[in-house]
């Protein structure tokens, strides 16, 4: 599976530019999409998931024209939208079974086996007969994951899949995804940088409808090796002073005090100590560079 996106542009009727001549190549692997709110991640994913028409550009999936041969895409697609609801008064089993039929899993025994396996995997087995509408947010999200994985999809698009999951469930899901994501294309959008770090072999950072960075997380980290410095700042005045002096990547609160991270080719001063770069640094730096341009 290889997904080739070329020159994708989309402007909404209200004038908001969602995608600006965006091109990407996504291979047979886990592909992470990082970007701030409104960057165009969801627009991009909806377009790949056949739910939205671009103004211009093309998407090719192993010879399938995604924009015109939608049905062919839908047959091999597993899609988890960022936000979704459920029908009232239907159980998880019934709903998954129904969706499996719609996805062409025609053999009853196979369907049953798949539905049961997914309920087990998403830890919904005990509540499989309960109405979906009574599910909590996390349970609903797990149901969403289960339905996206029905019928062994070869293209999986998951939009913020770990939102609303508790840490244990998040790990479970990432495990599950990585176990099936060997020979297929998985596109995962998230604002949790750790998801990408843990899971993805390739990633892209998107902002304002453009790709700011594309590569493997490891490469991106290597590029920053030795250039991230950290320091604890006690007062707001001090922070203000440093802000004008250095390129601050991020600040965190640690026990009520600011820990700032600064990007610098050489040591910015003795108060700073060198720290190993994180993917978050890559992300913030990419964004702030884009802002400056």
């Amino acid at each position, binding site marked *: 599976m290889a997904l080739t996106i070329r020159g994708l542009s989309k402007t909404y009727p209200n004038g908001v530019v969602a995608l600006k001549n965006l091109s990407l190549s996504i291979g047979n692997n886990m592909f992470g999409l990082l970007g701030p709110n409104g960057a165009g991640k969801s627009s991009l994913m909806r377009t790949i998931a*056949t*739910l939205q028409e671009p103004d211009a550009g093309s998407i090719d999936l192993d010879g399938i024209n995604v924009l015109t041969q939608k049905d062919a895409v839908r*047959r091999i*697609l597993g*899609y*988890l939208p960022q936000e979704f609801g459920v029908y009232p008064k239907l159980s998880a089993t019934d709903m998954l079974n129904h969706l499996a039929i719609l996805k062409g899993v025609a053999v009853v025994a196979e369907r049953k086996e798949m539905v049961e396996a997914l309920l087990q995997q998403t830890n919904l087995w005990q509540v499989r007969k309960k109405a979906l509408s009574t599910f909590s947010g996390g349970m609903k999200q797990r149901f*969403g994951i289960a339905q996206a994985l029905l019928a062994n999809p070869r293209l999986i698009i998951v939009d913020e899949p770990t939102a609303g999951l508790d840490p244990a469930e998040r790990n479970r899901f990432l495990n599950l995804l990585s176990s099936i994501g060997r020979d297929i294309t998985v596109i995962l959008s998230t604002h949790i940088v750790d998801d990408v770090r843990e899971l993805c072999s390739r990633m892209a950072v998107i902002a304002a409808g453009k790709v700011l960075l594309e590569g493997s997380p490891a490469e991106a980290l290597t590029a920053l090796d030795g250039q991230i410095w950290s320091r604890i700042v006690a007062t707001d005045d001090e922070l203000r002073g440093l802000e004008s002096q250095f390129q601050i990547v991020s600040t965190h609160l640690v026990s009520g005090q600011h820990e700032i991270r600064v990007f610098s080719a050489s040591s910015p001063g003795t108060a700073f100590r060198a720290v190993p770069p994180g993917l978050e640094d890559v992300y913030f730096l990419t964004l702030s560079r884009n802002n400056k341009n």
Partner: protein
Amino acid sequence: MAMLWEFFSFELRFRAKSLSTYVYFLIWLAFSFFCVASESFGPVANTNGKILLNGPWANSFQDAYALLFGIIVIAAIFGTSILRDFQRDTYQIVFTKPISKFAYLGGRWAGSFVTTVFAFSGLMVGTFLGTLAPWADHARIAPNQAWWYLQPFLSIVVIQIFYIGSLFFAVAALSRKILVVYLQGVALFILYVIGITVFSATRSLEHFWSGVLDPIGVLMVDRLTRYWSVVERNSQLLPWNFSGYSPGVFLYNRLLWTAVGVAALISVWAMFPMSVEALTARSQGKRAAKARQQEAEESRPVRSRVVATLPRVRQIFGTATIFAQYWSLTRLRIRIITREIPFWGIAGLMVAFAVNNGYFAGRVGGVDVWPVTYLMLQAVEGSATLFFVIVAALYAAELIWRERDNRFDGIHDALPIGGTTDWLSKLTAIVFVELVLLTLAMLVGMLMQTVLGYYHYEVLQYLKELYVVTLPQVLGTAMLALFVQTMVSNKFIGHGIVIGVVVLQPILFNFGWENTLYLPGAVPPYIYSDMNGYGHFVPALFWATCYWSAIFALLGVVSIAFARRGAEVSLRARAALARRAARRLAPAGALLLLLAAGSGAWYYYNAHVLNEYLTADDRRRLQADYERDFKRYEHLPQPKVTAVDASINIYPEHRSFDGTGRYTLQNKGTQPISQIHLTDQHEAVSNVRFDRPFHLQSRAPRDAYAIYALEQPLAPGEVMTLTFSVSHATHGFRDGNELAQLAYNGTFFDAEFFPGVGYDPSVELDDPRRRREQHLGPLEEMAHRGDPVESRANLFTPNSDWITYHTVVSTSDDQIAIAPGYLQREWHQDGRHFFEYSMGSTHILDFYAYLSGRYEVRKEIYASPSGPINLEVYYDPAHGYDVDDMLACTRAGLDYYQAHYSPYQFRQFRIIEFPRYRTFAQSFSNTVPFSEAIGFITRLRKPTDVDLTYFVTAHELAHQWWGHQLVGGRVEGSNMMSETLAQYSAYMVIQHKYGKDYMHRVLRYFLDRYLRGRAGEVRHEPPLALVQREPYVWYEKGGQIMYTLADYVGEEQIDRALSDFLMQYRYANAANQVDAADSTDRSGAVQQPYPDTRQLVEALRAHTPPELQYLIDDGFNRIVLYDNKALSANSKRLPDGRYEVRLEVQARKVQADGNGVETPMPLADYIDIGVFKGLKDEEQPLYMRREKITQEHQTFTIVVNERPTRAGIDPYNKLIDRIPDDNMIDVGRE
């Protein structure tokens, strides 16, 4: 208080900025504007054409009617005002401020109230503007009077806004659910409409509680004003006191509902929690907590963290999968619908109404009949149709929006399913729901038939009506709604459009837009008949259904192309996607387009090319043209028809007939006649020939009127013959307006297809409103009694006095053909069935009919003093119920009429059933066609039931005397000499069978019809002896006057008077004519006057004692109304064990003029005073005495043997009294 003002003014400012406030105002303005400016619009349009459009009654009724629809507006304004904070989540901010509950609720409520009153004031503005419209009918617009606007507005609109609004406000405030707010208005509206439908199905005469309890007022206004004359409607407002014919109903109603409104406000103030949680939250909260607990237990993570590999499955995409997808989607959608409460609520409500209406299916016009399947279907389907349509529109919207409403669209839209599959499954889900409802209706129908003791289940008829006729129409609505909901951006806008399309149809129809081909989803009207099934309606019904189904399915194809899928929801984006889908959908679209065009073209060819297409307005214009062009010939001397000989061939299977006829014409005037004028109403006449040289002088378009000039005038007394051909061929089908006279089984047409000599005034329009539309003057009044010309003309057939009649009629081999006359010969020839009938030399009216059908025949010979009489009933094999009753009545009637009036002039009497396309019975000479709807399914369940068959049979039989022996002149009053006397004769026959107490019920029933009839009078009400065209006078009033006269004077006396009168005046002008062309006797042929009501009244007067002479004057020459009332009644037990009753009564008497203006009359009348035992409506008399009453108030002391329960004045309602209920009251104890 300042805080209250703050909330109030905020609410007002908010509403003043809101567009909807002005939209509501404009809606009401437009509504009432058109009510006045266009006569065909609104509730007053279809009532009496003399009612002022801006008069007090019109304003009151319009206000009540507007409020019916206004429920939804009131709900929208009041509901949203209190819900706004919860909808926008501002309540957390508002409630944390130090505000009082009173100020918060009061301000919101008062603001809404003022806003709503403002919106509805558009009603007054609209009416006012309407009166200024130059094109309006200013004959019906009076100078504007402010109080006529304000009183109804204050007492109906404002009060109603108060309590309905308060109710909705309370419900909204306490439930805090947006859905409840949106639905409560619609729910109340639907419940009310259905409730009214159900109530009117019972045809109850009850008018106190039904008026008091009516929350909206439509029924209340009807109850209050049902007997109001035109003058009262144009001058009186609904009374704010205890006056009028339903004393206090209006006041009680307003007080009751105002109290309900106050109670609603108090409860909302007491119960409204100024907190985040709704009132209902506590119980919900408990349930939620329990659920949470369970969930916590169940979702404890499973320990194993090993990820098992998912199994491999195969995906198969092919036809089988498409079907599996379709089926799975459909099942899911059905499950969601059936698992929700609304569906069961709708189904339950529908069943409840169907059970109720089904129970009354066996009751038509106050008469018990067998609940045959068409009646049961009418009952269970009639009330359910609204449900079918609502369900179609509702679920179409739900199904279109469900994925989006549930936010499941992200997943759903990316599934590999085709748009067509998705759409079809939605449609199928609606089909399923509708099938459930239709099947429920069928089951309820059969259940109620069983309950009512009718076991002849016609399952096939149920299936045809519900699944073949109704289902496609309902699905049309569903497909339309699916389409509309697909195209619009909001569910509620969609609902509005769908409702608009449905509601618009009858309005457009009223405006003369009657064409089935452009009224969305319309089918031409049809009537099922047991005799004829769906008969000739089938092709039109089939093609119209085909046409609209194809169009709606085509909209379905468009819906598929435009379906919302994914994030592209703007219409432009979807249009682009639709273009891409077009190629795939084009074949289906083209096929449907072809089907629509084909069936539409075929329909058009039939309705507009093969047949002439005429709207109701076109037909009225033709009538008006006829009157305008030819009325001047009305009094032109013409020869009289004296003999008819016709040979007619009926082809029932083609709904056609042809034949030839010969009239013998004699000049019975004193001047020679040189022109013969012929009216041909149905373009059925051709080959007109006279037995002497003639030429056609002129012929009107459509052959409506032709004038032939005779080369040699017809001298006075001279006789000649006219021969002609007559035929009518049915081609294809029409867009409604099928001739009821022609049917595959049950043909029944009369002489209207034959040439009529001279001008035919029965063609004239009689509704003044319609006459004004056609710019005709007022309808000509009938001539006064003694008019030299008109009193010499026969009332029924002005261009004939009496005829002799001979005919040969043939029909298809399996049918029997009937015409007046004695059967001479019956034979089969060339696969057809021939009958020859002749009246010999017996004179009959120039009034005959031809009937043909597949009949079962019951014959018997009745030995009467004048010789044997053949009694025959021709009926549908399924309708044998009443045949014995008809024969029994005929025997009883012949006995009574021969003994009391005169001998029967014929040797046979035949009753023949015809399809219920027309619902009457009509008396031809010795031959009575009787509609299957009124006579053949009557059923007597209780001894108190009105025996309609017996009654109608006796009435029609009596016409053999009153109408066929005695005929009046063509002057005012004459009509009562046939109809009133037939009605009276029938009362006597009924009374002999059932007794006097039974007559009480019959009279009550007919009194209501008289009083309603005079309230609907469009011209002016005449006294009985001067009646012209007023059936309510000659039937209901006349019958009552004659019955009471006989009761007061004595049946023997009255019958002797009638007999004397009959023997003196019957067969007027029969002796002065020749009956056949070969006769040479031309002597003494000068026309003599016919009798009129002066002679009848004098005959009755001669047999009435002096002290009761006032009854003759009041009854025949005046319009007199009584207001009798029992004021109090108390009894005490006397020492001897008897009871003394003290009864205080009131009696009043007024005379009304033709417009209903009343003047008091002095009282010196004999009125029954009675004391009864037993419960109300089952009274048995203990004491009954006719007293002379001269005072308005009088007290009687009466001693009776048993304990009295009821007492009163005129207890049997023998006198005409607009409040018949208060004549009796319960007897109290001292």
